[in-house]
């Protein structure tokens, strides 16, 4: 993907899965998203669904979705419809050892979003 302004690496040191998420933003809107990396079926599927979900979303909306997805994997009550295709991963909550695989891209995105928001806040202060 050309013109990405955010690049965030995620790594699961226990199992060796790695991903890099690329975001193209305009103000606080995520215009486009893509990823590279290697990992198991769960982490790869989760990353792919996440990318589809966040295109066109605002940074705050993305953060809310990350929280909802995380809650879903810990079997808390959430509105699954918000999560689109990613709700298909609800079943991973029955495999506690694999929850970290599904969460890897979401946690990585969360860091990227927070860094971007901090950056924007600093710019606003100037």
């Amino acid at each position, binding site marked *: 993907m050309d013109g990405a302004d955010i690049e965030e690496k995620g790594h699961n040191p226990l*199992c060796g899965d790695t991903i890099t998420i690329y975001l193209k933003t305009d103000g606080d809107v995520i215009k486009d998203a893509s990823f590279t990396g290697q990992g198991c079926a769960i982490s790869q599927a989760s990353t792919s669904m996440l990318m589809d979900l966040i295109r066109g979303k605002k940074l705050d909306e993305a953060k809310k979705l990350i929280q909802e997805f995380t809650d879903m994997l810990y079997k808390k009550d959430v509105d699954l419809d918000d999560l689109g295709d990613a709700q298909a991963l609800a079943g991973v909550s029955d495999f506690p050892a694999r929850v970290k695989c599904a969460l890897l891209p979401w946690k990585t995105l969360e860091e990227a979003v927070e860094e971007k928001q901090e950056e924007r806040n600093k710019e606003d202060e100037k």
Partner: protein
Amino acid sequence: MERTIDVKSIRDDFPILKARPYGRDLIYFDNAATTQKPYGVIKAIEDYYTGMNANVYRSAHYLSGVATNAYEEARNKVKKFINAGSEESIIFTRNTTESINLVAYTWAMENIGEGDEMILTVAEHHSNMLPWQMIAGRRGAKLRYVYLDKDGRLDMQSYRDMLSSRVKLVAVQQVSNVLGIINPVREMTEEAHKAGAKVLIDGAQSVPHMKVDVRDIGCDFFAFSGHKMMGPMGIGVLYINKDILDQVPAFMRGGEMIDEVYEDRATFADPPLKFEAGTPNVEGAVGLSAAVDYLENIGMNEIHGVEADLTQYALEKLKTIDFVKIYGPLDMKDRMGVISFNVADVHPHDVATILDQDGVAIRSGHHCAQPLMRYLNVPATCRASFYVYNTREEIDAFIESLKGVRKWFKRN
């Protein structure tokens, strides 16, 4: 080799083998990570806390004497088990990792310097790699690696070529936790000593499975863990050869390891207590002692024989599955019961989860050997590892489960 021992009665000694994951029989093939514990070990820990517990070496009362005797008896038993020759040489630690770090932070910090070299193998566990990276960084020394030949065994010629008067330490595992290879540590030690280097052997994967004689190997340091040999977690051993014992400075400082303490200075106790600061893991030592009893009652050569049979059987079966790739030697020469493999087009974590649904516990990941994974050019592998309580029937069930893995991914 014919099985000469009664596996049924051995299995009955391990209460956890009756666990029923998801309603299926448990098939525990993650023994290289940790092993299960027989009643004898569990009972020894219970007996310690119900009849012996007190702090060791410190108090004049009855229980302190009982606890001290139990702890020293455990040391004596471990000494005989690996033929260490002297109790002074047996230091209780938490595990192999701590044993190796002890050597790094004490002997190596004083004896390895600028321009010196240390030889490791690419297959070392992180615990026998990171301490030496630390020494290399702090002391300006250099790490050199021995790689593998085409059969997945150490390239001994390159090892010999590397040895020189610059080499101060050779640190090598006796058995690989990924490839299952048995390294020729006796020969390697002899050649290292000729070059003037000291030798540390990581015995974490060897001591539980074969007869080990540290004085026959001739090494200077030898490290292993209790929990991989049916003992409890949190107890490990460092053997230091008597000839080098007085060149090893104290490690952690505090209680138990002292002789006389003044406001500004202290003198230390003699080994092994010099290296065992603070209240030790007495329950762990007592549990480890019971594990040694259990292993010796079966016999280390018998255990090795049973595992060789299981490994050969599993390798033969795995070789017939065309979508399975095995890492490490395919024949049984100098090989132990650890088999790393991958299923074509399916990630190891997914293989492990699918097998788990059938009650089969294997390990997936990098096995604390990331440089080896990179060298093999794989992100991770699956690993099945056996112990004396495993059976051919369990291997049959594992193979059946493995055959079903690709169906989940609609790959045929």
